[in-house]
């Protein structure tokens, strides 16, 4: 069940504790500043992950998000949740992924923690490099960084915190082709 502000603390919430991300976000919105929050620990199951993403998308639409803003959040959260389940927890169903989604008409906050070994996002190969551009894989993290207003990993690399501002001017200039 999706949680409204004030009743957000589900019994399965906050099973995982991880150090916050190494670079602080500009700010972390408090729950009472948001119109919807979901905090949930889910098993490493992509179907369950997609159910939570659909809930997030529904709430963003209710908060009047649309177009590129909505698409960008969907892409980033899709990549992040799939990475946590597939690469982080390696689909081990005994491991959980902890989600914290917060929505307001102006801001979307997403925090995802998995129980994997973590990774160094800065050490990933550059998928736009001529040598790798026509090779599969390696685009998820790049898309997350490119499509969110801010996206930071913790030191271990098993926690991703990101925000997207609605109508963020940083995304206005990109070429539509």
């Amino acid at each position, binding site marked *: 069940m999706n949680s409204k502000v004030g009743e957000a603390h589900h019994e399965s919430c906050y099973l995982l504790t991880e150090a916050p991300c190494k670079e602080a976000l500009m700010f972390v919105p408090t729950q009472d500043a948001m119109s919807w929050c979901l905090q949930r620990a889910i098993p490493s199951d992509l179907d369950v992950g997609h159910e939570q993403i659909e809930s997030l998308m529904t709430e963003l639409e209710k908060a009047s998000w649309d177009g590129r803003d909505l698409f960008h959040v969907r*892409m980033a959260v899709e990549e992040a949740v799939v990475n946590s389940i597939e690469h982080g927890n390696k689909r081990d169903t005994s491991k959980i992924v902890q989600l914290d989604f917060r929505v307001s008409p102006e801001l979307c906050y997403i925090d995802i923690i998995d129980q994997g070994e973590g990774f160094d996002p800065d050490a990933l190969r550059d998928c736009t490099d001529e040598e790798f*551009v026509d090779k599969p894989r390696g685009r998820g993290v790049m898309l997350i960084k490119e*499509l969110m207003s801010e996206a930071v990993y913790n030191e271990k690399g098993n926690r991703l915190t990101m925000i997207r501002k609605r109508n963020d001017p940083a995304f206005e200039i*990109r070429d539509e*082709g």
Partner: protein
Amino acid sequence: MSNKRRIIVSDEGAICVVRFVDKKIVDSASIEQLGEELNSLVLVDKKSVLLLNFEGVEFMSSAALNKMISLNSKLKAVQGRLKLCNLRAEIKEVFTITRLDRVFDIRKTEPEAIAAFKL
């Protein structure tokens, strides 16, 4: 032609036009099946000139992108040709960000893409 569940295939002369059944290409089992069906067009059905028409596709993840990349490699191996068309602006932007717009020949409309095959 082998049975397909994730794609709809039609022939425009020598060009094999592929449309997608799913509006949102995210489900991992569907993506795997999509990849197999795209590859089988080349490996089983021996198609070598393919046009992927993205009309109606609202969203696709990078896992789906990987299947397009694999298809492109399969086609290259048989000196085939691949074009994409009708990408909604946000999906086109994903190709641009990842520089895959340099790997794939992306055209606005199906007639434009078909004409480009004949150049």
